[in-house]
């Protein structure tokens, strides 16, 4: 441990952390550019660094990029990762009420809190968590994906049926292309580019970003400065001025008030996030779902979820301290989800360090980097040189999150200015960024077309009030869900019992079915009581 402290407090490492933080925030803030891409660009550079330096660069870069993704997510309604798509609409709704600085401040503070808790979880429980992860096989993943999808339906505002419709639409979109379970083509209409299916990044940019641009264009002649879109700033936004206080102060007191919720969310993030595959994406949804369930109970007394317009004054009337803005269910959900997706980053390192199995695409790159340094991830890494490398990873996680605070603050200040740009100038620029973001992922023109089609779809779905977050999750989880579903069925010759054979699959399956069936059951129970 002391060895690790010395290794990390080296001025070179600290400088790398700061530089990587700036680079990470920059990349993350540009729609369509992913942390994976940034790390891949960094890989050739790391060949000339020693392992601790290289890890410092990657860890910091990723932690900062995922927070920075919240900036376009909030201001432009373009999520950076599927996990942030969970709260895109909520956080953007806050901007429409003029609360952009408060929303971003909350994202920053809760991201950092989530990241710190994730690092501590990694530090204390990596090996025992890894043993838990080793229990997960095909069937368990099937249930986990269903659990994530169920949370998306439960966590979406408005009618769960509409959320389910969006979800199924997303799942259906994921069946386009070469099916992974069979290796046969479906719904490609002979277009070679469609073989690889619908890439979720252009889809996400189209569904959220482009559709928002289109909707604003539609009303531009009536509200040239986006009056409907943003309105005048709320009292608290205006009153507290533009200083450090408006971003940090409120968010910090919010964090203190909701410290337990933050812990809970970060815990969910780290434990679900450690599962290789789509762990982080599911973590944010599960955390949001839990948060919404609980806040429904405290704010509105259970039952129907209120629209923000009703909910905000309702909770305001209950607030006691006039200087303190009222608790806001929207903001709380965003805070919980963002804490979860940041702590999930640390979670992804659990299988990487313990088994050498990458938890996500970034840790896959990390394994490559470590192997270049003759370091083999796996159980041995904990013994090697007294575990200096492992403890360095933990410490770097802590430091990276602390550095994120000032860097993220500057980014928020720069980003929030965007809101004051008139729409006739802002909308074309966002449009260009939508196009560039969709193109940059694979340098494919076809992806721009996908983005356009998804933009129109998103526009139509918005009109019918079908939430878009579940659509994105459906696109992301559709293929792995099918692979597990068909794989299990084929292995068991079609017996459905295979889904419940092992104790861990039985437990998850029951949990999952309970989640899916509980709304139906409660509705039935109410109707039966009324009759």
């Amino acid at each position, binding site marked *: 441990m002391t060895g690790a402290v010395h290794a990390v407090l080296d001025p070179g490492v600290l400088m790398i952390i700061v530089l990587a933080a700036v680079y990470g925030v920059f990349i993350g803030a540009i729609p369509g550019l992913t942390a*994976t*891409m940034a*790390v*891949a660009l960094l*890989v*050739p550079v790391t060949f000339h660094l020693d392992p601790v330096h290289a890890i410092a660069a990657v860890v910091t870069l990723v932690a900062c990029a995922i927070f920075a993704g919240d900036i376009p997510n909030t201001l432009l309604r373009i999520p950076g990762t599927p996990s942030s798509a969970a709260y895109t609409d909520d956080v953007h709704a806050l901007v429409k009420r003029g609360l952009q600085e408060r929303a971003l401040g909350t994202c920053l503070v809760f991201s950092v809190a989530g990241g710190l808790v994730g690092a501590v979880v990694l530090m204390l429980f990596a090996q025992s968590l890894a043993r838990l*992860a*080793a229990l*997960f096989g*095909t069937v368990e993943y099937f249930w986990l994906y269903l659990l994530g999808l169920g949370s998306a339906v439960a966590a979406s505002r408005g*009618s769960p*049926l*509409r959320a389910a419709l969006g979800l199924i639409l997303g799942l*259906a979109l994921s*069946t386009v*292309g*070469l*099916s992974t*379970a*069979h*290796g*046969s083509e*479906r719904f490609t209409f002979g277009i*070679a*580019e469609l*073989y*690889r*299916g619908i890439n979720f990044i252009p889809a996400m940019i189209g569904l959220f970003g482009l559709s928002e641009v*289109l909707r604003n*264009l*539609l*009303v531009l*002649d*009536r509200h040239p400065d986006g009056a409907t879109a943003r309105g005048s700033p709320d009292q608290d936004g205006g009153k507290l001025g533009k200083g450090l206080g408006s971003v940090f102060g409120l968010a910090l007191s919010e964090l203190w008030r909701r410290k337990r919720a933050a812990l809970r969310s970060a815990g969910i993030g780290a434990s679900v996030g450690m599962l290789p595959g789509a762990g982080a994406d599911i973590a944010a949804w599960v955390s949001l779902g839990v948060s919404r369930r609980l806040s429904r109970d405290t704010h509105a007394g259970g039952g129907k979820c209120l629209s923000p317009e009703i909910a905000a004054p309702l909770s305001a009337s209950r607030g006691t301290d006039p200087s303190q803005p009222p608790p806001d269910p929207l903001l709380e959900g965003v805070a919980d989800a963002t804490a979860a997706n940041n702590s999930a980053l640390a979670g992804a390192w659990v299988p990487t360090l313990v*088994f*050498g*199995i990458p938890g996500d695409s*970034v840790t*896959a790159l990390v394994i*490559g980097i470590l192997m*270049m340094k*003759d370091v083999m991830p*796996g159980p041995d890494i904990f013994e090697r040189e007294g575990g200096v490398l492992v403890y360095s990873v933990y410490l770097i996680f802590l430091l990276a999150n602390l550095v994120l605070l000032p860097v993220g603050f500057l980014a928020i200040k720069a980003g929030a200015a965007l809101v004051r740009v008139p729409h006739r*100038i802002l*909308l*074309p620029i966002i449009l*260009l*960024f939508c*196009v*560039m973001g969709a193109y*940059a992922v694979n340098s494919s*023109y076809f992806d721009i077309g996908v983005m*356009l089609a998804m933009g129109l779809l998103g526009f139509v779905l918005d*009109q019918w*009030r079908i939430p878009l977050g579940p659509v994105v999750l459906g696109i992301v989880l559709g293929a792995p869900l099918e*692979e597990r579903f068909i794989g299990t*069925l*084929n*292995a068991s010759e*079609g017996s459905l019992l295979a889904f419940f054979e092992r104790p861990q699959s039985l437990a998850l399956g029951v949990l999952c079915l309970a989640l899916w069936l509980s709304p139906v059951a409660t509705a039935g129970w109410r109707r039966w009581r009324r009759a």
Partner: protein
Amino acid sequence: MLPRTALGLLAGLLFLGLSGCRAEGEFPDRPIFILCPWGAGGGTDRCSRQIAVLLEQDLGVNVNVINATGGQGVTGHSRGARARPDGYTMTMMTVELNMLHWRGLTDVTHESFVPLALFNRDAAALFVRADAPWQTLQELEGHIKTSPDTLKASGTSQGGIWHLALAGWYAAIGEDPARLSWLSSQGAAPSMTELLAGTVDVVACSLPEAAVQMAAGKVRCLGVMSPERVTPRFPDVPTFEEQGYDWSLGGWRALGVPRDTPEEILDVLVPALKRVVHTAEFREFMARQGFDWRYEDPKTARATLVHADRALGELIRSDAFASIRRARFGAMVYPSVLALAFGGVLAALVAKRGLKRTGSDRPTVKGWVHFAEGIGFVVLFILLVRPVGFLLTGGVLLGLLFWRLGVSHARATVLAALVVLPVYVVFHILLRVDLPRGLLGW
């Protein structure tokens, strides 16, 4: 004042453009791109990036990697084959090139490319859990012969190279490959998770993909499907041949350019890649990653590709293999389930009158015109950017849209230039995204 500034900027832009429009110099005089058909972080991606760095030092121009992933390699290989044959787009070809066309998934074959250098061949190997009862291939064969339907295996997607390798061995020992239960997965790493979790009994993949688990003592390798042992990295792993099975199969990685690439460009690239592959740095990289290093010049590489193509073609077209492609739960099961669910939810929504449009105010005609202009921006961008180039297309379209939305001519011009130039710098120069150069050469 403003219009003059705008004119000045436009003139400056034009000048920049014309100065970039010099006659084609000696190859290469601009960035080269390597298309990698597999995702960032995987073995093929790591090789591509290592070669890119070294080639950049050798040729003196930027060499960037594009991950054109998906469709089990169809996307990347077909994009590479259809690229302009000017040497600026190379493809990191993998063994799937020898498989996809036999499965009817693409018409791109190894003949669509000129191989420049083949630098790696990794044989398939069989892995079991450390606590599995089988110590040798004979014992595993014994188990397969006594209870053929019980063995579950994974390693890659259904019909992928490692699946073929194991199915081929089944055929070699006289078993019906259809009896092998294959769990389709996204690659070796998730398969290892399945193996450790106990859902599958055997994983087929290459040795480096399982090196970490082997070193940790979690899995045991029963044999490698190569003619000789893989030295120096895995000297203790016996080959299939040593254990009495005449069976070998594996993947390869090679760089290629489209078929019609002119001779003088090949004369630059082939020696450059030969130097790169032979550098101490690259050999050390391959050794550290556990990849089998070799160098095959274009002629030898072609022979390897022809041989692999014939062998895999025979395997894929054989009756035995045809049967394993008919899984009981076919490709339309899942979409059908989804269609049913969609119908159900939609019916429930309609019944509950839950589908209502938002009650926002009706847009005006002018609103719809703006809407159409937004869509027009994207469509025109897709159509024009390749022939015209990014800066010109982006700048002009952006300026037009600003102007259509009510910004004055002059301000629209200035703004467009102020936005497009930094975007170009960030995406093309900093992030090395391949932006089309178009008419003017930039």
